[in-house]
C-alpha cells in the first residue's frame, strides 16, 4: 500500500523559506485555496500557511547549533486528527496515504488541531475550515504536468534539495533509501502517530 511522504534533510536546510512561500502561492490559487491572510498590511498579520520553518538554537556558546526546521503535516499512518473529526471531513486516502480535509464537510470546530501533536493544522479565518498540507495532491495527480514536475511545490522549489518526495512503503524509493542510509527519524514517536514524513539528522563531515 502506497504511503506518500516528504523526507526533510536537516543537514542541508539553510532556512531560506522557499518551501513556505512556494507552498503558499501554489495552494492559495489551487483547489486547497484561497489561503487567507488576516491584517496582511497591519499589526500582527496572520495567514494560513501549510508549511513553516522554525529556526532554533541548541546548546551553549560557542558550541551552539542553529537548526532550521521545516514542518508541515506529516501524513501520519495513524493520524489522530481523523477519528476525532465529528463530520468525517478529516480523512486519509487509501490509494496514497495522504491526509486531507474535505472543505465541504468541515465545520471548523478545530478538534483536529487539538488532536494533532505537530501543530500541522490551521484554521482559515475567512472560510472557517481547517487547512493543512495536501502533499500538493492537485499537482501529483495532474497528468498535464510533465512527470518530473508531478511533485509538491515545496519539493520543486527547494534550492538545497532538502525535501525528498516519494513512497515510504516502497523500499526501493529515493525516500526509503534516504531513511535507511541516513538514519531518518520520526518526529515525536512517543505519540504513536507513525508519521510518514521523516527527518534526516545533521551529521559531520570527517
Amino acid at each position: 500500500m502506497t504511503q506518500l511522504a516528504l523526507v526533510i534533510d536537516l543537514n542541508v536546510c539553510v532556512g531560506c523559506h522557499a518551501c513556505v512561500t512556494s507552498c503558499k502561492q501554489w495552494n492559495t490559487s489551487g483547489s486547497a485555496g484561497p489561503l487567507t491572510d488576516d491584517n496582511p498590511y497591519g499589526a500582527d498579520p496572520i495567514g494560513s500557511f501549510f508549511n513553516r520553518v522554525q529556526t532554533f538554537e541548541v546548546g551553549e556558546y560557542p558550541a551552539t547549533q542553529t537548526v532550521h526546521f521545516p514542518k508541515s503535516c506529516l501524513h501520519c499512518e495513524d493520524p489522530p486528527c481523523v477519528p476525532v473529526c465529528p463530520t468525517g471531513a478529516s480523512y486519509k486516502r487509501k490509494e496514497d496515504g495522504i491526509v486531507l480535509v474535505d472543505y465541504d464537510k468541515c465545520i471548523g470546530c478545530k478538534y483536529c488541531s487539538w488532536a494533532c501533536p505537530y501543530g500541522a493544522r490551521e484554521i482559515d479565518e475567512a472560510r472557517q475550515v481547517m487547512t493543512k498540507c495536501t502533499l500538493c495532491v492537485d499537482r501529483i495527480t495532474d497528468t498535464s504536468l510533465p512527470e518530473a514536475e508531478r511533485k509538491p511545490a515545496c519539493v520543486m522549489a527547494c534550492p538545497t534539495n532538502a525535501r525528498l518526495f516519494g513512497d515510504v512503503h516502497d523500499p526501493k524509493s529515493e525516500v526509503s533509501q534516504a531513511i535507511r542510509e541516513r538514519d531518518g527519524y520520526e518526529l515525536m514517536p512517543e505519540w504513536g502517530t507513525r508519521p510518514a514524513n521523516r527527518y534526516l539528522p545533521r551529521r559531520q563531515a570527517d
Partner: protein
Amino acid sequence: MPSTPIHDPSAPPVPGAATEIRTTTCYMCACRCGIRVHLRDGQVRYIDGNPDHPLNKGVICAKGSAGIMKQYSPARLTLPLRRKPGSERGAGEFEEITWDEAFATLESRLRHLRATDPKKFALFTGRDQMQALTGLFARQFGTPNYAAHGGFCSVNMAAGMIYTIGGSFWEFGGPDLERARVFVMIGTAEDHHSNPMKVALSKFKRAGGRFIAINPIRTGYAAIADQWIPIRPGSDGALLLALIHELIRLDLVDHEFLARYTNASQLVNLDSESDDYGLMLRNPQGDVVNPLRPHNFFWWDQATNAPVSDHAEGASPALTGRFTMPDGTPAAPAFELLKARVADCTPEWASAITGISADTIRSLAHELGTAARDQKISLPIAWTDSWGKRHESVTGSPVAFHAMRGLAAHSNGFQTIRALAILMSLLGTIDRPGGFRHKSPYPKAVPPNARPPKGPDAVKPDTPLNGAPLGWPEGPDDLFVDAAGEPVRIDKGFSWEHPLSAHGLMHNVITNAWRGDPYPIDTLMLFMANMAWNSTMNTSEVRKMLCDRTVTGEYKIPFLVVCDAFHSETTAYADLLLPDTTYLERHDCMSLLDRPISEFDGPVDSVRIPVLPPTGQCKPFQEVLVELASRLGFPVFVNPDGSRKYRDYPDFVVRYETAPGSGIGFLSGWRGENGDKALRGEPNPRQWDMYAQNNCVFHYRLPVEHQYMRNWNQGYLDWAQSAGLRRDRDPIVIHVYSEFLQRFRLAAQGRHLGKQPPERLRERVERFFDPLPFFYEPLEWQATDTDSFPLHAVTQRPMAMYHSWDSQNAWLRQIHTYNFLYVNTRTALDAGIGDGAWMWVESRWGKVRCLCRHSEAVEPGTVWTWNAIGKQRGAWSLDADANESQQGFLLNHLIREELPDGEAGGRISNSDPITGQAGWYDVRVRIRPAEAGEPAESWPQFDAMKPVSGMPAKAPRRQGWMAGLMKVIR
C-alpha cells in the same frame, strides 16, 4: 467514519480559466533566476523556477515564490506625482501630473543644467542592476556625479580582489564546490548568487565536503557548517594574516603557482633613497609585452645567482632572499617582503584580536594547506600559457572560499580582502578546479582599464564625459581632482580622501550636497534608493538635510526626483515622484556590459520580457532615461541629423553598439543579421524574439581548454580580446605585492612628480597605501572610547528578504514582521536585559530603543539585527501601527556618515581610506535595559506617512489570493 469526500482536492478552482505560461527573469533580489510565470485569466497564479535555466535549474527561493504579493502590493506607485506647491518636502503631499508634464519639467531643468554646469545634476541608484544604462546616461549627460550602491555596500570586496587577482565574487566569480573538498565561508550571510550557492553547497555536503563558517553569528548557511568559528567583527584581516604566516612557516604554499602566475618572484626596488623605492624593478632589455601596461620585470635566478627577465626559459626564480642588482640596487622578491610582513602575525597575535584560539588558527591553516597540497586534482585538459609553455593538464587545489560584506563593510576591509586574495593565491586556487573560478566578463586586467576623468576640465557644458564616471585608478595621476588636489565629484570619489573609490560613495551624497562641500548641486535623482531611510547612515539628520533651506528660503538641494515602484520612506521627499514598473512589467537585460549571470564555463546573459502590462501609469525607469536622453539630444541617442535614434528601451538594447560598428551591444546572444553570431556581431532586429524563445537566456560555453587558468591561458586571452571582453591580451599576473598602492604612498612622501595629496591627507595616504596587506583597527574605533562602547553592532539581510525591500509583501512580511537585537545571553544578563525585554543600544552618535532576543549563536562581544525590517509608520502601505514601525528599528541611527578628523573640527567620510567603502560594521555600542514606564515601542519614531494618489487609500484587512478572481489595480 469513512465516506466519500465531497470536495475534490484536485478539481480546478476556476474552471474554464485561460492559462498561460511565460518565461522571464526574477528580480526579487540580485540573483536573477530564470522563472516561469503562470497566468490564469491574466493574473499571476504561480511563479516557479525555470528547469531549463542554467543559473537556478528550476529551483526558486522564498522571495521569488512570493513575487505575486510584490506585483499586487497596495504599496505600488501608479501615477507620476508632483509635490503640491506650497507644501513641505517630507509632508508627502502630492498632486497628479501627466508623464508629458513630468518629462517637460525634467527636460527643461536638465537641459539648463547640462548647458551651464553639468555636475549640478547627480544620479544615484540603489539596488538596481542596470548600471550599463544609468552609467551611460550620466556619462552622456556629462556629469561625474553618478554611482550605484557599491560604495555603500561592498566595494572593498570588488576592489580588494580585483586589484589582486583580476576578479571577485558575486556574479563575477566564486567557489568551485563541485570539486572542492574544503570550503570556507567567511563574513557572509547571503550573496547575489544565492540559489546557485544553495544548490552547490548541498551537493558539496552530500559528497562529503567539509564546510567551515567564520562569522560572529551562526545563522543561515552557517547553520549547516561542520565547524563554526566565531570571530570579532573587523578582525578578519588579523586572522587571514596569521593564516598566511602559518602557511609560509609550514611551507604549505604553492611555489610553482606563485612563481609563474603571480608577481611573488618579481624583484622589488629596496633602495630607500630612490623615488622608485618599493616599485618593481624594470628590465630595459625585457619584453614589455603590452606598452599600455608594461611587463618587463626581473626574477632572481637561483641557478645562475643573477637577475633574469621574469619568465625567462629555464630560470629557477627565487621566492625568498635579499639580493643586490649589478648596479648596486638592493632588491628582494615580493614574496620575501610578504614573508617579512607576516613574520609577527602569529596565531597568538591574531588570537588576541579575533577572539579565536591560537590552536584553532593553527589547525585551520594546517587543514587548508595540507588539503591544497595533498588532495591535488588533475584534469586532462591541455592548455598553453602566456609565456608559450604548453601544459598537458590543469591542476587544482581543492580549497575554496566565499566572502562578502562581513569583510568588506569595515574601514580596514580593502587590506583585509587583499589578504584573503593573497591567501587564496598562496594555496594555488585561482581559476583552478576546486578553488576559485572566474565568470565572464572576468578575469579583467589588474586593474581593469576604465579610468575616471582626470580633472575638472573633463566636465564641460553640453559634452559627454571623456571617460566613464567610475573606474580603476592605477596611480595618483588617475585621480579625479582639481589643481589643489581637491575632489571634483559630489561624493568626493577618486580624491585623495579615498583614491580607489571604484563604486562611488552614495552614503555621503546628501550630506555633501546639503553642506555644499565640495559644491552645491541642483538636482538629485534617485532610483530604487531608499536614502531617506535604511539606505543611509545618520538617518534622522539626513532626513532633516533633505528639508533644510538656505537663508533665501530655497531648499539646499533644490530639486529631488525619486523613481521607485513602491511607497518607500524616501518618496515623501520627492519634488517629482515617478512610478516604476515591477519586474514582471518590463524589458530588461542582465548584460555582460554590467552584471550578467555567467557560469564558470562561459558568459551568460539574460533578459526580462514583460509578462503583464504596466500597472496604472507606471513606466519602466529605463524608458524614462531613454526618453530624457533622446529629448536632451545626447550624442549616442540621436542620429547625425539630430533626430531621435531609438524608439524605446528594447530598440536601444538591440541597436546600441559601444562604438559604431563594434558589434558589441547590451546583449551577446543571437547577434548578426542571421542571429548566428555570439558576443560580437551586427545588431539583430529579432534578438528579443530569440531570447523569448530560449528561456530569456543565452549561454555561451567556452571550449574546455579555455575554462581554467584564464588569467594566463593565452587561448582564452586571445578569445576574450576578440570577443570584446578585454581591451588587451596580455596575461593577468596576480598582484601579491601591489605596486599601484605603492605609487600612492610615494606621492604622499613627495616622491612623485605628478599629483600630490593635500598636506592634511599626506600622512593618511602614506599610512594606508601599503603595497602589502596589514591589519589596523577600524578608524571608528580610534575615534571612540571603546571602554565605554565595548560591543560591536552589525546587521545582516535575511534570506527571505535579501537585497530588496519586502515589507510591502503580504507573505514575506509574515516571515519577518519586525526585528530584535540579538544579544549573547551572557552579555545580555550581565547588562540586566531579559529575553524579549525592551532595551537601549547606544553608540557615540545616537541611540535606539528595541527588543532584545537572547542568543547563543552570536559571539559575546557582538550584537546584531536583520537590516531594513524596521520601517517608518505608514510607509510601504502598512498601517501606522504595523509591527515594522512599532517594534521594528534601524541600527542606522547609530552610525554616522562622517567621523571627526584631527583636532581642528575636521570631518572625513566614515569609510575605508583606500576605497571609500562605508564602514557600517565599525560602529561600537553599549547596551542597557529600558526603564520601567517607557513606552513599549521602538525609538526613534517618526510621523506616519500617508498613502499618495495612485495607491489605494486603505490596504485590505483580509486577503486570500485566488488568481483569476481578484480585483487588481489596472
